[in-house]
């Protein structure tokens, strides 16, 4: 991603105007308006070996207002285009939920938020831009801490700078941070951790100083704004990203989504950090470090089998880890290292694993 957030917003506005003109022209000429976009059907989602992520294939779908079944989603899509155009012009953001409710003011209905989320994703596919580019954010928030100076582009804060090591509870990765310019950092790497508890532990144990690192709390499966921000840290600042998760199939998959993206966002190629590395906690670590564990649930086992046949996991290392999960039937949490002491994970486990990954 080379273009800055500001530039991208301008691009989106241009695309929306062209879309409007096209539809206007069709109607004026007595043609039922129609739009075309890449198909997001499962059949059209393919794994791209070189990008190491899922991408949408070449199939495109037409949505025509002539087709009675398309009429409603067609209108919803055009309304959304109109709505986000207005958001950008006014310098406002909206949550996914706000979009759902806002429609009513314009005579548009969504039967539930799932339906409006679906249309938001459609617009992403149509424009080839992430929803953050048109100011729509989810509510979940994750956080960052460490020596990074940013400059806001948010209206009212433009030009102001902030150093992200100034608040030890960490900074929320919200719309302002997502769209801020990255000015300067002394950091050499990024640790993305799955949990707030470990994030606090890392800050308290000065991992940012000891390792010259930025620390990111992904708050579980990271929201897209966080994946987008991780990518910027990686691409714009050239920082390697290391991911720490719980030792279970879902934890592994948090890493994988950061590195290779999700099938849901296959239509977007700028949300991944292909060079991100998974430090652990691996299935093997449970044995090596004799961690307290619980039995895999049926759900976990099912998930592990799914991942085994997922092309993103074809790497031998991941296959092996999945096999260990299935064989030992154990899972463990990041907090499990507290069995030894609160510092153990920082002072012992982290150096071990960094060494291991670098030797690979």
């Amino acid at each position: 991603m080379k273009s800055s957030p500001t530039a991208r917003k301008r691009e989106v506005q241009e695309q929306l105007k062209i879309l409007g003109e096209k539809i206007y022209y069709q109607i004026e000429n007595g043609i039922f308006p129609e739009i075309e976009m890449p198909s997001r059907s499962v059949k059209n989602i393919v794994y791209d070996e070189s990008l190491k992520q899922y991408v949408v294939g070449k199939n495109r779908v037409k949505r025509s207002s002539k087709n009675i079944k398309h009429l409603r989603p067609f209108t919803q899509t055009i309304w959304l285009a109109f709505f986000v155009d207005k958001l950008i012009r006014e310098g406002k953001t909206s949550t996914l939920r706000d979009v759902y409710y806002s429609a009513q003011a314009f005579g548009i209905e969504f039967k539930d938020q799932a339906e409006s989320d679906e249309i938001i994703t459609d617009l992403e596919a149509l424009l080839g831009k992430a929803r953050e580019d048109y100011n729509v954010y989810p509510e979940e928030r994750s956080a960052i801490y460490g020596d990074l100076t940013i400059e806001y582009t948010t209206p009212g804060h433009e030009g102001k700078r902030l150093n992200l090591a100034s608040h030890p509870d960490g900074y929320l990765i919200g719309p302002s941070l997502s769209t801020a310019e990255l000015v300067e950092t002394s950091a050499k790497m990024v640790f993305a951790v799955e949990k707030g508890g470990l994030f606090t532990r890392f800050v308290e144990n000065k991992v940012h100083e000891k390792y010259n690192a930025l620390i990111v709390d992904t708050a579980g499966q990271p929201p897209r704004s966080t994946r987008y921000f991780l990518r910027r840290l990686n691409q714009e600042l050239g920082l390697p990203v290391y991911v720490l998760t719980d030792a279970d199939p879902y934890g592994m998959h948090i890493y994988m989504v950061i590195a290779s993206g999700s099938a849901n966002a296959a239509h977007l190629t700028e949300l991944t950090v292909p060079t991100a590395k998974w430090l652990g906690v691996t299935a093997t670590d449970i044995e090596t470090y004799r961690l307290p564990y619980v039995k895999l649930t049926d759900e976990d086992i099912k998930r592990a089998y799914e991942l085994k046949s997922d092309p993103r996991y074809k790497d031998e290392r991941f296959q092996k880890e999945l096999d260990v999960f299935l064989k030992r039937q154990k899972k463990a949490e990041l907090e499990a290292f507290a069995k030894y002491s609160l510092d153990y994970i920082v002072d012992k486990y982290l150096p071990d694993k960094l060494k291991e990954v670098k030797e690979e």
Partner: protein
Amino acid sequence: MKETFSEISPSDFFYRNRDLAGFTNPSRALYSTVRELVENSLDACELERILPEVYVRITPYDPMETVDPKKYIIRVQDNGPGVEPDKVPEAFGKVLYGSKYKLRQSRGMFGLGGTMAILYGQITSNKPVTIETSVDGVKRYCYKLMIDIEKNKPIVVEKRIEDGDGLHGTVVELVMEGDYLRSSTKIQEYFKHTALVVPYANITFVDPNGRIFYYLRTTTEMPPPPKETLPHPHGIDVEFMRRTIRQSGEENLAKFLSKRFHRVGLKTAIKFLQYAGIDPNRSPKSLADEEIVNMVTAMHRYEEFLPPDAGCLSPLGENILAAGIVKELTPEFFTIVVRPPSAYSGYPFIIELALAYGGKMIEKGIKLYRFANRIPLLYDEASDVSWKIINEEIDWKRYKIPQEAPIAIIVNISSTRIPYKTVGKEYIADRPEIEKEIKNALREALRKLSAYLSRRSSEEHEKKKINMYLKYLPLIANFSKELAKKSRPPNYKRLLSSSEYEGEQKKIEEFTNS
């Protein structure tokens, strides 16, 4: 200690084991009594093609007694053909004696019911039963009977002849211990069900509280009377063959078979005997035991016999069933499926199935009305073959019928022999042949209901479609104006007037990530 042996009479057997025929307790016995007597009345009328008028009354024997179980007087009166006076004592006072021991469809199966009711009345009240009957309307014969149970013989306590008043028919009145409190629901349900399949009858029921229930005639069409028929070769056993041979006078086997068996002509008989390797010219009585066994086995295996003719059966018929459904269920939609006759073990049967949907009387969910030779079956529904089919054999999803749709299913099986599982006559055994016919009938009915529902919904659908264009096109026009920064919306009215959009019914193209 030596064993001592003794014989008991059939009456005595059923007296000792009255549970078996549905006379388990005062509540069940009262219901069984009403049912057996009403069925006898209806059977008698139908056999003579008389439009039935049946009057049923239950009165407390002692008005001062208030607590059930107590003694009741049950009176059932009909306008049937009456019973020949000299047959009366044995017909009503002897077990295993009656007019139903032949191969002909009738409501009663075991020929036990009426006499069992009388027997039960006697052992709980020690009162004789009163029978009044007239075959010609000129003379009415009035009997009071008891049963000598040990000897299985009627005792005539009193016999009078009265003026017939021009009315033929039979009245049975007996006193028995019953429990109306606990059986009233079933008894009323019995009448409602019956009314559904005999819309050509007038039935009046006066309950012990004096309330009168009328079930009125809405059609004068009656089902054809059942006929007596010869046994089909597939349905016989060695014992039956031995008996038939013993009674036979035919000089050779070919003639014997063609005269004594259903669907066997001379040609078929000869072809069959050749198949079985038996000389067609042999005398039936010359067959050795072993040869009889072999011939019966061959008859079961020989597949060229025509299936039994259902001409001897008396199904309800579409018209009568329709009249009953319209009268008792007033549905929004109904369909009747009459399956072609089929047979199990050599007994012919016909399945008639009706499916009714909606309207004010039918409640949500599936209500099953089961009939066997027009007898309502009320107990042990869960064990019945029809219920098994509804629950296990039908893929309801296929018919796109909404869950909890208000549906009534009426199944009537007509046969010379209903395969009940118990003497209580409450549920049908699951013979594969019967299962198949009910299944096919139900499937056909469901297809029709499914078609009706989808026709109804597609009409609604068309209307909805036009409204959608009216609603959405102006919105699209306006948003495009805003996006394109134009000063006025594009003219979408041309699209609305274009007839083009109406044709568009193509399958939706993929557009969601599902």
